[in-house]
C-alpha cells in the first residue's frame, strides 16, 4: 500500500536529518529554543514540505499554495529548517534564529519569514486559524489544502476544542491536522500533567476522521494524508506517535530539552549522532 518509492523515502529521511542538524545548531547558536518538540516534528514537516504540499518557495504568497499552520509554534526551529531546505531563504540565515533583527523570530511570524503562513506561539490558537483558512478555500472554491501541526499538550487548551467543533460542523475536509504525540509537555508527561487520552475517542466524538501513525515513518506520514483525502465532509486528524528529541539520543524522551538548547559540548555529540561530523560548532 505504500505510495513512496524507496529512493524517495531515503531522500526525505536525508532532508529530515538535515532539518534536525539545523534545529540543534540554530538553537545552540541562539542559546535557547525548543529542540525537543522541534525534533519530534521534523519528519512531519519534512514530509509536508518535500512530498505532500503543493507550494512554490520562489513565490511564498502563491495564492493557490497549500498552507501550513504550525500551531505548536515553539517548534519553529524545525519549520525554519524545512523552509530553508526548501529554498524560502538562505540556510545561513538559520543561525540568526532568535537574534536581534532576524527574520527568524523565536516563534513563527507571518510578517517576517517567507513561507510562514501564520503567526503562532500562544498554544491553542493555530487550529482556529487553520480552520479559518480552510473555510476561505471552500468559500473561494479553491482546491488548496490547509495543514496544521498541533502539540499533544496543546490540546489541553479549550480553544482547540472550539476549533474542532467548528471544523467538523463546517465539513472542512480540506483541513488535515497532525498531532505530534510525543507524550511530553514542559512540566512532565501529558498523562500526568493533564491527561488527554483517549484522544481517538475524543476527536471522533467531535466529528473528525481520525488516523493513527508512527510519526517518524515517511511512508506512513504520506500515506495518511492520502487516506485523509479520500474522506469527504470531515476534517482529518492524524495522531502521529513521535519521540521528543528524536534523532539525538540524549534528547530523546527527555524533558530537559523541551525548552533548552544544547551547549557546545552537547552539540558536538548531537551532530555526531546525526551523522554531521565535519561541521563547525557554534556557527561563527
Amino acid at each position, binding site marked *: 500500500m505504500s505510495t513512496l518509492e524507496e529512493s524517495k523515502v531515503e531522500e526525505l529521511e536525508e532532508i529530515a536529518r538535515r532539518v534536525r542538524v539545523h534545529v540543534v545548531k540554530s538553537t545552540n547558536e541562539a542559546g535557547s529554543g525548543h529542540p525537543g518538540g522541534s525534533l519530534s516534528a521534523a519528519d512531519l514537516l519534512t514530509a509536508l514540505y518535500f512530498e505532500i504540499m503543493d507550494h512554490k518557495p520562489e513565490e511564498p504568497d502563491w495564492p493557490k499554495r497549500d498552507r501550513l499552520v504550525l500551531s505548536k509554534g515553539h517548534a519553529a526551529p524545525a519549520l525554519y529548517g524545512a523552509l530553508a531546505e526548501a529554498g524560502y531563504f538562505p540556510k545561513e540565515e538559520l543561525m540568526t534564529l532568535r537574534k536581534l533583527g532576524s527574520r527568524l523570530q523565536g516563534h513563527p511570524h507571518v510578517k517576517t519569514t517567507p513561507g510562514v503562513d501564520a503567526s503562532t506561539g500562544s498554544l491553542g490558537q493555530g487550529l482556529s486559524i*487553520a480552520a479559518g483558512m480552510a473555510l476561505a478555500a471552500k468559500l473561494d472554491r479553491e482546491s488548496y489544502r490547509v495543514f496544521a501541526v498541533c502539540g499533544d499538550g496543546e490540546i489541553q487548551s479549550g480553544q482547540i476544542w472550539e476549533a474542532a467543533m467548528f471544523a467538523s460542523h463546517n465539513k472542512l475536509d480540506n483541513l488535515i491536522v497532525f498531532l505530534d504525540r510525543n507524550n511530553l509537555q514542559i512540566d512532565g508527561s501529558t498523562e500526568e500533567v493533564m491527561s488527554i487520552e483517549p484522544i481517538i475517542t475524543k476527536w471522533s466524538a467531535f466529528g473528525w476522521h481520525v488516523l493513527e501513525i508512527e510519526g517518524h515513518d515517511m511512508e506512513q506520514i504520506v500515506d495518511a494524508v492520502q487516506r485523509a483525502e479520500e474522506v469527504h465532509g470531515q476534517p482529518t486528524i492524524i495522531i502521529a506517535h513521535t519521540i521528543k528529541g528524536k534523532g539525538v539520543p540524549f534528547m530523546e524522551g527527555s524533558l530537559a530539552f523541551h525548552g533548552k538548547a544544547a551547549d557546545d559540548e552537547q552539540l558536538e555529540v548531537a551532530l555526531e549522532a546525526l551523522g554531521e561530523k565535519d561541521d563547525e560548532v557554534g556557527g561563527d
Partner: protein
Amino acid sequence: MWEMAKQRDAYGEALVELGREKDDIVVVGADLCGSCRVKEFGSEFPERMFNVGIAEQNMTGVSAGLALSGKTVFSSTFAVFATGRAYDQVRQSIAYPELNVKIVSTHAGITVGGDGASHQMLEDIALMRVLPNMNVVAPADYHESRKATFAIAEKERPFYMRLGRSSVPIITEEDDPFDVGKATVLKEGEDVTLIGTGIMVSECLKAAEKLDKQHGVDAKVLNMSTIKPLDEDSIVKSARDTGGIVTAEEHVVSQGMGSGISQVLAESNYHVPMKRVGIPNVFGESGESDELMEKYGLTAEHIVESAHDVLERR
C-alpha cells in the same frame, strides 16, 4: 430634541451594503448575531456569514485565518467577550500579524443596563488601545457608526470599533465627513474644550449648551471618534486655544480616551488644566441606562461641573 437611533442598527445596515459592493467581505459571529445586527448580512449572504457559536476565542482565530486568505473580516460579539474573553487571541492572532480584521463590538459600556457588571464592558478601550497595530474607533451616533463601518472596511489593517446597545441621539449630519484619525469640531468655543467619544459626545453638546446659557461659558466641543490613533494636532490646538480640557467617555477613566489625551498634553507645550469624566475604576451594576449614567457620573451635569473645575484651576 434629537432623533434617537441605535448605533448597531447602522452597523448592520452598512454591512449589508458593503456585502453588496464587495465580495471579499465576510462576517463572523458568536451566537449574538441578532443582537449585534449582523444577522441581516447573513440572510442576504448566507455563504459569507459564519456563526461559531459561543466560542469567542475560536471566532477570533477563524477571523485571522479568513483574513490571511484575503478576506476583509468583520467579527462581532458583545464588547466584553470580543476584547476580554479573547484578548490573547486578538493580541497574537490579529494584532501581531496586523491582519485585516474588524472587531466590531456592540453592548459596550454601562448603558447595557439590566444585565449588570458581567456584561457592561468598561475596559475595552484600554485593552485595545494598548495593543500595537490596533486602531480604535468609537462612533458618536447612528450616522457615524454607518460611515465608520465603510471607512474601516477600506483600510487593510486591524480595527476595534465600539458600539453601544441603546438608542442614542443623532447629533451629526448624514453627509458630515468621517475620517479615521480625525476629530471633528461640533461647536467652536473659546473658554474650555469638551472632548467626547462615543455616546458621550451628545452629553458634551448638552453640557456646552448649559455652560453657555447658565454660566456664560463658551465651550468648544470635539468629537474624538478615533481613539487610536488620537488626533494629536487637534488636541494640542484645543489646549492652546481654550486653555482647558474636559474629556468624557463611557469607560473607566483609567487608561481610556481621556488618559490618552492627558498623555498627549503632558508631552506637549500646553500643560493646561484637565479633567476626565468617566467611570471610576469600579464595576457597574444592574439598572436602567439613564439611572446608571447618573449614578456613575456620565451626564452633561458632570461634564459641566468638570468644566468649572478646569476653569477654576486655570
